[in-house]
């Protein structure tokens, strides 16, 4: 799948995860993300999936416990703690536990959505398709990502070498013989890299952007951001004038986005071979946009089913609107086979690169390419 389609999917999945507190919808989103993850078959940043799920479960537990022991409201009393205990004393209720679980579930859903995105998107391609106005940022990140494996290897090597020089790594002070050569090597390397970049014409197109255009765009950005800031201040400090505040925030944000877009068009830099956009990407973007639109419309229409209050007298079971549920189900579309599966026909991810940045330095030495003795 194209990285931009993934970004759209992320947005569509994350908005309900953030804004909806109805556990049924949350479970729907979480389930959709989980199914997509299960069908991926390959992971670029596999390591982060586990840690994200763990963090999410941790939040779930924290939320459950804290809500239970500190919210003493509700009709279904599970047990009581002595009232003399500060904060935790009082009735421990089922309602409080459910409230805690739902809050935790919202966080867990957000994390699972992000974890699925991480596992699914090709981080290298994501970096390559950074918008034009951020291309220099893209170059910095690209350099960094390219050098990380060597840096890790180099850190291990320095540690070993200083160790056999007699140095013992025991306390903080002993980090010096590791950190200093690492930093010095990095700085020396940076000078060489800068030379190599200039020799290959880096900066020649960026330099030709007229200064006055840039100044104009910057002034526009200042205005747009000021509008956002003003809107937020109105919303925070003056109650009652809500509409104005929102209008300024939204208007400022849209203005800023448009200015950034114009900025990107100033750059005459070109891109070698972007990832091809296929009908599958279009399908994912369409269903994601549908889900997103449904959630936003429901929010604007203040559909009751979006909120959930376990303490309400109507009972613990949440309301459910099937139309919204169907729209959210569309988030599972990338799970359909053939949409994200191994992209054999796309040259951008051949078997050798399958894992964007997955090739961490294998321990030195060994067959064929001979890492140890090559890396000077």
């Amino acid at each position, binding site marked *: 799948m194209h990285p931009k389609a993934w970004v759209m999917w992320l947005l569509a999945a994350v908005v309900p995860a*953030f804004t909806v507190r109805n556990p049924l919808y949350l479970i729907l989103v979480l389930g959709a993300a989980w199914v997509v993850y299960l069908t991926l078959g390959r992971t670029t*940043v596999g*390591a*982060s999936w586990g840690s*994200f799920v763990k963090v999410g479960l941790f939040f779930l537990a*924290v*939320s459950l416990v*804290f*809500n239970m022991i500190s*919210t003493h409201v509700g009709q279904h009393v599970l047990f009581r703690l002595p009232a003399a205990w500060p*904060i935790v004393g009082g009735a421990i209720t089922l309602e409080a536990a459910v*409230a*805690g679980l739902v*809050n935790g579930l919202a*966080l867990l859903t957000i994390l699972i959505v*992000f*974890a699925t*995105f991480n596992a699914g998107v090709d*981080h290298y391609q*994501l*970096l390559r398709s950074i918008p034009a106005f*951020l*291309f220099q*940022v893209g170059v*910095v*990140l690209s*350099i*960094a990502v390219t050098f*990380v494996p060597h*840096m*890790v290897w180099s850190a291990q090597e320095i540690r070993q070498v200083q160790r056999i020089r007699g140095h013992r790594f025991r306390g*903080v002070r002993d*980090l*010096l013989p590791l*950190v*200093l050569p690492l*930093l*010095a090597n*990095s*700085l020396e390397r*940076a*000078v060489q*890299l*800068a030379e190599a*970049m*200039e020799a290959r014409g880096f900066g020649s197109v960026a330099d030709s952007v007229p200064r006055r255009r*840039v*100044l104009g765009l*910057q002034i526009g950005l*200042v205005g747009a*951001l000021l509008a*956002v800031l003003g809107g*937020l201040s109105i919303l925070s400090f*003056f109650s009652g004038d*809500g509409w104005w505040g929102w209008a300024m925030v939204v208007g400022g*944000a849209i203005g*800023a986005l448009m200015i950034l877009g114009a900025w990107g068009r100033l750059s005459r830099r070109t891109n070698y071979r972007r990832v091809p956009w296929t009908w599958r990407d279009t399908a994912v973007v369409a269903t994601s946009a549908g889900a997103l639109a449904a959630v936003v419309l429901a929010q604007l229409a203040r559909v009751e089913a979006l*909120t959930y209050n*376990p303490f309400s007298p109507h009972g613990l079971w949440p309301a459910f609107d099937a139309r919204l549920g169907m729209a959210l189900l569309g988030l599972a579309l990338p799970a359909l086979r053939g949409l994200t599966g191994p992209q054999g026909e796309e040259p951008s991810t051949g078997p050798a690169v399958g894992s964007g*940045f997955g090739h961490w330095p294998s321990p030195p030495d060994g067959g064929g390419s001979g890492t140890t003795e090559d890396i000077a």
Partner: protein
Amino acid sequence: MQRVLNSVILAIASLIGLGAFLYPFLVPQQSPQFSAAAHAQDAPLIFLLLVALCLAAVLSSFSAGLLNAKLIAVLGILTALNAVLRGVPGPGGFNLIFLLPIVCGYAYGSTFGFLLGVFSLAVSAFIGFGVGPWLPYQMFSVGWVGLLSGWLPSLAGRPRAEAWMLAGWGFVLGLVFGALMNLWFWPYVFHPGQSEMFWQPGLGLGESLKRYAVFYVATSFWWDLLRAAGNFMLLLVLAAPLLRLLRRFQQRFYFAVLSS
């Protein structure tokens, strides 16, 4: 002129970012037409999107003309180094993520420190830590660490005083960073209920702060104290030699062309 505008953009974006962190203290009692519960829940998402937008604005503004090949190469490589240092478990469970932004911000100026902080977090997300909802917040806050470090008074020539100053600074930052990063999920662990640790819109600054203090001490304060102490130790020992090294290389990165 361009530099001035850069600073203005960074200042406004930082204010918005700060608002994103501190909104739980600021949100007033909502007017009746905005159902408090509904929009209080939207706030995290809205701020997340706004923070991401601000970052994009600041970065694209900085990169126009200000970033030459040297700066980009140095930033790229030091970012890689910092991302690797983040993965090195330091003594006591804290990590080294602040070390370079503080020292480089102090030695090479606040712009450099800010960018290094921002990029470090982005890269570590790319190389295995994963993109999470907290990423824009982390990027901003570590960026601020570098930015503010550039504003410290220069004590060049007095290495001991420098080391103590940076160490104390690292300690303070360790605590502030922890308190800030917990804020983003604090409103999450709430239900418009009656608890004394939990956030509720419209509490007013004093009451919100009090509740947050209870929440913070109950959750991650001790962890953050450990991190702050780690920062202190690390900077006390490493700041002076690192600064010597960075200053040695400074002239290789900035110079004037004197062709005749």
